[in-house]
């Protein structure tokens, strides 16, 4: 496991972790039947990007002119947008459930009742 050496002080470990979370998110989005499960996949992907931003803001800068905080601020905005997205998506899920009595996406395939 030489590629994991260096522990928390190596950029590439964070990138690999976030890549793994991203792949998990994609798998969840493609293969889940439940709409909430797909939403969980989206959240995983957003977390992966957040880790990437913070990791690069810590390790990736060449010249620090206070820019070491920019990545963190981007992550904050990502978190906020994820919250907004989750609220709307879950509201949609509940609305779909009220009309269709299910949230399995392969059974909900018409636009209008």
């Amino acid at each position, binding site marked *: 496991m030489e*590629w994991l050496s260096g522990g928390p002080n190596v950029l590439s470990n964070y990138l690999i972790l976030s890549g793994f979370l*991203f792949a998990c998110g994609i798998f969840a989005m493609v*293969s889940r*039947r439940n709409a909430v*499960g797909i939403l*969980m996949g989206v959240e995983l992907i957003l977390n992966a990007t957040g880790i990437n931003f*913070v990791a690069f803001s810590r390790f990736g800068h060449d010249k*620090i002119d206070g820019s070491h905080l920019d990545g963190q601020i981007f992550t904050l905005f990502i978190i906020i947008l994820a919250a907004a997205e989750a609220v709307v998506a879950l509201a949609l899920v509940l609305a779909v459930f009220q009309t269709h009595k299910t949230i399995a996406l392969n059974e909900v395939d018409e636009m209008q009742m």
Partner: protein
Amino acid sequence: MTASSAVVVVGARNILHAAFALCICFLGVGGIYVLLHADFVAAVQLIVYVGGILVLIMFAIMFSSNVAEDTSAERRGWFSTTTGLVAALAVFAGLFLMVRRLEIPLQQQNKYAAVDYVNTVGVTPSTATAEQIALLQKNPELLHSISTKSDVDAKAELIKQSPKDGEKLFDAWMQFKGRYGIGHKLAGEYILPFEVVSMLLLAALVGAVVIVRKELN
């Protein structure tokens, strides 16, 4: 821990188990933020994700499905599963190879990055006094040697390298590093996105209410 719970999130047959695994995963990501010295982001992660989004997800699950029975056929069939697996593996392999190939070493950082940082940020409001900034500017080598270390290690290193005013240097560095710089940035440079996001949150809230409410006759 984060990675394994992410596997459970995608693998669990019962959606509620996946939600609990997602909780652990969010906590793990929060821990990663702490490791990266992003305390504020970690706190926000805990509050918003674990405290907010996860509760919403739980509510949605409870409202919308019969949790006890609904464990069968969570997948969309073998075709979707294999497609998803192939896509996920391809993405991960690509990212992994790219990271291995790039391998950005820490040491390639600009040697005087730390002192540049002091020079530029020293002009903007920061909690460090002028005296402390001058002290930091006098020791570029020392600053460089601690700029990627954790606070505890940095303190030990400073005291080892200059027993005389290591303590003072550390105080100055901590004051300077701008643990509170996020506030300045959010209210200064990023004020427009900040306001736009607040409007967006309001819109999302109203939109959610409009979507779920029952039609009034």
